[in-house]
């Protein structure tokens, strides 16, 4: 068949880059409209995110959360499920981490606590995703509705638990007691300083490497195992999945549990890595931004990693901008994010067809010669 193909790099690099560039140009116009210099703001933003080691550290710290939630959305999406509950699953996953730490930090060393905390995050996150998954698979309740509802339930549940059970006796605020050091996820800067490497004081910690491992794990699971085969079949063609004898209810449930577990790992970074105590609202926004990360990363672990870095940079750079240019509030980050999502998600096809058409015509012309 005479079928000209679009070069791969067009789809995975050129089009996303174009979309992001457009988002930044429009963001620049917004900044210009409020009477500020967009070039200057961009300068602060890039410097803040990548210009010095603490900045980079912060960028990676935010990116860690986005990798987890982005992967969570991606795994569910590959099975045709839209998990909007990353927020709640991350929150409850954090509860799992917190409980493990609070229970064992006096008696156990880090080497024991760390794997248990990972399991805690996964089990709690997965459990929180299980209920909507069960309702979808066996009762037909739409997963978008139920996962959103479960975000609110998670939020109420955490308030209840913190107020009535987990609040530390020493403090006025709604925090648990601070964990002992054995339950602290080591910072990268403390790990690296004995080697004589100084990367400045930032919250990026070991969870970042766990996030990278998760990227690899998701890639293996989705593209190289029979479970992944089943979930992709279900996601691309549910009728064919039935024909193939795939138990769609079962796949739906375990995929959502994997997704929930991945979201739950946010708790490792936030609770064990940075706050060192259980608290309220530590997952704020990460779950939802995960959707944008997955969209931008085209539901592939490598893409998600890159998108997570971009969003991490936006978070960190945005904070820096509002610090250096007080007229620009941190809300500008939300504007930029929104535009990035708009152009790389909702308006993804604005250029796609035209650009692909251009390359197809070019390839066809080359073929005819």
């Amino acid at each position, binding site marked *: 068949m005479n079928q000209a193909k679009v070069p791969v790099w067009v789809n995975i690099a050129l089009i996303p880059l174009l979309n992001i560039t457009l988002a930044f140009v429009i963001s620049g116009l917004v900044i210009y409209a409020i009477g500020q210099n967009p070039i200057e703001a961009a300068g602060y933003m890039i410097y803040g995110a990548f210009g010095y080691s603490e900045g980079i550290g912060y960028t990676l710290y935010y990116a860690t959360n986005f990798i987890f939630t982005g992967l969570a959305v991606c795994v569910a999406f590959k099975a045709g499920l839209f998990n909007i509950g990353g927020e709640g699953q991350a929150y409850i996953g954090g509860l799992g981490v917190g409980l493990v730490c609070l229970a064992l930090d006096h008696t156990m060393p880090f080497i024991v606590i760390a794997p248990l905390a990972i399991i805690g995050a996964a089990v709690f996150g997965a459990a929180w995703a299980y209920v909507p998954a069960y309702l979808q698979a066996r009762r037909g309740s739409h997963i978008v509705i139920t996962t959103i509802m479960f975000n609110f339930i998670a939020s109420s549940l955490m308030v209840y638990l913190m107020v009535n059970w987990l609040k530390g006796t020493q403090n006025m605020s709604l925090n648990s007691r601070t964990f002992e050091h054995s339950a602290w996820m080591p910072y990268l800067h403390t790990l690296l300083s004995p080697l004589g490497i100084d990367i400045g004081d930032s919250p990026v910690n070991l969870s970042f490497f766990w996030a990278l491992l998760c990227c690899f794990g998701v890639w293996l699971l989705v593209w190289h195992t029979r479970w992944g085969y*089943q979930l992709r*079949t279900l996601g*691309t*063609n549910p009728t*064919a999945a*039935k*024909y*193939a*004898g795939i138990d769609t209810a079962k796949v739906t449930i375990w995929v959502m549990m994997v997704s929930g577990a991945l979201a739950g790992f946010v708790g490792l970074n936030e609770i064990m890595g940075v706050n060192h105590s259980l608290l309220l609202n530590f997952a704020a926004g990460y779950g939802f931004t995960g959707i944008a990360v997955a969209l931008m990363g085209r539901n592939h672990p490598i893409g998600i990693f890159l998108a997570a870095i971009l969003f991490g940079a936006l978070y960190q750079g945005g904070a820096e901008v509002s610090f250096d240019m007080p007229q620009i509030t941190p809300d500008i980050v939300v504007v930029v994010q929104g535009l990035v999502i708009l152009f790389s998600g909702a308006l993804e096809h604005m250029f796609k067809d035209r650009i692909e058409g251009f390359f197809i*015509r070019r390839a066809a012309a080359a073929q005819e010669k």
Partner: protein
Amino acid sequence: MINTTIPYAIELRDISKRFGAVQANKDICLQVPKGSIHGIIGENGAGKSTLMSIIYGFYEADTGHIEVDGEIVNIRTSQDAIKAGIGMVHQHFMLVENFTVLENVMLGAEGGALLRKGVSKARTELKRLASQYSLDIDVDAIVEELPVGLQQRVEILKALYRGARILILDEPTGVLTPQEADHLFRILHSLKEKGVTVLLITHKLREILASTDNVSVMRQGEMVAHRETSKTNKEELAELMVGKKVRLTVNKEEAEPGKVVLSAKHLSQFDSQGVKRLKDVSLELRAGEILGIAGVSGNGQSELLNVLSGITVMSEGEIHFAGDVISATVPKTAAQVRDMGMAHVPEDRHKMGLVTGFEAYESAVLGYHNSPVYNGKFLMNRKVMLDECSTRMAAWDVRPPNPYLKTANFSGGNQQKIVIAREVEQNPDVLLIGQPTRGVDIGAIENIHEQIVSLRDAGKAILLVSVELDEIMALSDRILVMFDGAVVGELDAKDANERVLGLMMANSYSDDPRGEPA
């Protein structure tokens, strides 16, 4: 060949259309004399539908132009087409099912914000049209309650109501029984006598020969020949369509049926709305025979395949297969049934048989993906899958033989070969095949038919579901006819002919031997 001083009803000049790299239409020229029935024939994918979509304003041609009654018209939307007097009856009807005939005909031509005036005008006009073209119909009937043949008549009336002088029918007989089809052609002839020009798109040679004045043949996006129907024949047209000599029959020996390998007893199936789709179907399938299931599409054949293959659980009845009894209380899943030795080539390969977004080698293990052959402890063994896919592609002549190519990028015939190869190579005892050659080119059809017969000769039991009577008659050893979810007739393939089968398919064999549809 035709007097050129009279302008043609419609004339196409050098119409070309390209979709990306695919040249769907290339320099198409066509002249259709007024008041004639003009057939356009070609294989699936030859570009017929694209051409009609250009005439009806769904697509715009890249180059070329269209003339109606000798004047160049600029058709950019279907509104323009209607204005130029062109009407179209689509293969899948564009009717609002719970509206009345009258409401459907008026749709888009209501004539004002308030309906009252339009309704009375439409009613008179419809009456006039119906009597002028002898298209009797109850204008107040709800469309979904009408038989398919009458629904099609509503579509024709709709086009005429909008003033169509040129009527395009796209594969109009696909959903009709042979008798309903005959009736349609009588209608077309009376339209022609009233001066309406008819363009008939089909891939069925019989219809072209029986009803058209002229015929144009399309192949791979080009118009390859124009013929006067009276001066051509089936063989010539078939050859023009595919570009080489084809055989329309299958060589096969007498069947030697062995023992019963699958027997179904009183199978019934209700759908989610509680409608009984399968009614008390019993059948026995023997080793070494091909049992054909004939019937107009949508009369329970799909449900039968789904129940037999374990995709849906029957509501009543049981299946005896491989020493096991499968029933509503002791069901088996599709995966279990497959393990017991039943393979299934589904009717709709896009919806069911393949994952079009997968690479070919992934689609080539669908349903068998849990097999230890393809799996290591945790990871799938990609190399085994790729090697096997390449071997099969070579053995089954799948083109291009590239296991990495996306399934969607193969042509219909090659996709079908991927599915059939996958199912047959498992060496099953029972093979269910639905519409094995739907949308497949004639060259590939021959190949697929030979494979099916050689499987039978190897002692496999084959259940063949097809809406193509030619196919059923060419392949089957025994034929069951389904109508409205039930088996209404069984006959030996030797006793079958189109008339008998057609009457059975319309369930009017015994009570009305003349075969007029009710």
